[in-house]
């Protein structure tokens, strides 16, 4: 025992070095890595800007115009809204496969409640939003209280909700003309306003209310995630749930709130879906699941939870939009879009792993 003591006596005398010295890494690569660690949305933003410049060079002014660029915004609005919901869930180290199904069922509830039961349209919309929130809450309860893996839970509820959607709607579509005549509020998000259009109303930047809603939603969520205790708890739960619990975070409540909010946002996406396609169709929105996860991953948000910025999800959705429209304007086979998106996904995850090495 005394041997140990003597051994330690050497360090006992000297107290020159502090336990915690903070020194910055000086090399350029390390700094870049550190910058990414602090602002993880930087990579997708760069990729977005580069791809816009790239397609502007390849396609020319037909691409790089206010009209085309705002068209991309319109095309990604649904994915953007759903990706915002997906971001919240993925930040908690979960995944929500039921987002598309919740959006569609909510839109069907809004339409059917208004047309089948003759409810006032605002009330029907509230019911749709309520259904989305309840379904999200159910996901959250199964994950947080029953402790089931999020992938399995939402794989199950995805099927259940989609089947309920077809059973309840009897696979009927509510036509766009009927909605326009009787319940225009359902198409609220399709309203547009233009900036810089010519007299005949062509050209210029066109914004739908859906696009504005997407941008506002992401701005509000970015604020909530960054500057409120709830947001910090979402990150902490995704990072290490046990540590979060021990430091006094109510993990269950945080998880349930995230899934319920995700459900509510998906219901809004369902409302925006009616605006986008005009009609209420139980077969729409099937690809929103994969598209939203793609946007989130390309946006640099870690599938392992606790890392990433919600702006990344928007940039991720926009990157996909830029590639789809740019390649279409170039006239190449649309399969190339999927090809490049596949490459981007793998690159994004590789970058995520690299950023994590800052820890080492």
């Amino acid at each position: 025992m005394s041997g140990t003591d003597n051994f330690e006596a050497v360090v006992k005398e000297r107290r020159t070095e502090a336990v915690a010295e903070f020194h910055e890494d000086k090399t350029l690569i390390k700094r870049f890595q550190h910058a990414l660690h602090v602002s993880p949305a930087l990579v997708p933003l760069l990729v977005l800007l580069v791809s816009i410049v790239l397609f502007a060079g390849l396609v020319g002014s037909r691409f790089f115009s206010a009209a085309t660029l705002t068209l991309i915004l319109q095309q990604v609005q649904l994915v953007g809204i759903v990706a915002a919901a997906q971001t919240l869930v993925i930040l908690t180290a979960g995944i929500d496969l039921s987002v598309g199904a919740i959006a569609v069922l909510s839109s069907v509830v809004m339409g059917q409640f208004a047309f089948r039961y003759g409810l006032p349209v605002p009330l029907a919309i509230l019911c749709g939003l309520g259904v989305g929130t309840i379904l999200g809450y159910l996901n959250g309860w199964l994950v947080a209280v029953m402790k089931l893996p999020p992938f399995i839970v939402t794989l199950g509820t995805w099927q259940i909700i989609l089947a309920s959607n077809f059973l309840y709607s009897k696979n009927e579509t509510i036509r766009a003309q009927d909605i326009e005549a009787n319940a225009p509020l359902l198409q609220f998000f399709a309203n547009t306003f233009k900036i810089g259009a010519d007299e005949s109303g062509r050209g210029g930047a066109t914004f739908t209310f859906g696009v504005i809603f997407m941008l506002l939603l992401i701005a509000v969520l970015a604020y909530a995630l960054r500057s409120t205790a709830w947001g910090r708890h979402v990150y902490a739960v995704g990072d290490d749930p046990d540590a979060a619990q021990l430091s006094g975070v109510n993990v269950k409540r945080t998880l349930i709130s995230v899934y319920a909010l995700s459900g509510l946002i998906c219901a809004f996406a369902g409302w925006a879906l009616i605006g986008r396609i005009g009609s209420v169709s139980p077969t729409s929105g099937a690809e929103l699941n994969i598209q939203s996860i793609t946007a989130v991953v390309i946006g640099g948000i870690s599938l392992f939870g606790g890392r990433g910025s919600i702006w990344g999800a928007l940039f991720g959705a926009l990157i996909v939009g830029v590639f789809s429209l740019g390649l279409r304007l170039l006239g190449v086979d649309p399969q190339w879009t999927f090809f490049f998106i596949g490459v981007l996904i793998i690159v994004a995850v590789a970058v995520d792993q690299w950023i994590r090495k800052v820890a080492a």
Partner: protein
Amino acid sequence: MQTQTQHQVQDPTMAGQQPILVGRGLVKRYGKVVALDHCDFDLYPGEILAVIGDNGAGKSTLIKAISGAVIPDEGDIFLEGQRIAFRNPTEARDAGIETVYQTLAMSPALSIADNMFMGRELRKPGFMGQWLRQLDRPRMEKFAREKLSELGLMTIQNINQAVETLSGGQRQGVAVARAAAFGSKVIILDEPTAALGVKESRRVLELILDVKSRGIPIILISHNMPHVFEVADRIHVHRLGKRLCVIRPQNHTMSDAVAYMTGARVPDTEFESA
């Protein structure tokens, strides 16, 4: 250390002093396994009480029962004479009992300041805080910086640095500073030097003595006998789910202590005078 304890009252129960934290007849079962078997526990003001015991003796369960992470099946816990029954760690924290877990319970991707205030964030005054629930970052960062430098911990360049970019000793330092900043009654340290190198352990031990000198009693769980014998005023030996004895480090050798906790020897009395 030793001169200090010699002046204390020579009485097994430290008469004249009321214990600040008392456990009586604590029982916790996990299925058929009895982790705590009618265990008693006493912590006196201003002391460092080490808790030692073999693996599986129930040290962790005892500590978790005190810190609210585990709810005992039977028994009572008293803090300053008041009976307490924590349902979760937050309630224990609110009562002034702070715990530094072996895992440190920090979120690696979040900043030092975020971690220090996790679960007890400060909000801005007025509209921004009340209605928009905005965090008061400048105030939290200032507080975190003050507390860290108070413990002589660091010349911090960046309090917003992610915890995962810190070394093991630095993380331990932040965790201890968090406990010291908020723990008004009792601080519990679970294996604070287990994952550290020699120099870093040394620094953490000094930190523990620093915290003690502010008058806050500390419960120290450790396997490292030299560390325990160096800083502890009394040593609670835990064996088979209950308190076997409480010894004073100056009266025993480390091998005595190891013999007691492994059952190789039976102590003469449960309590002893200094």
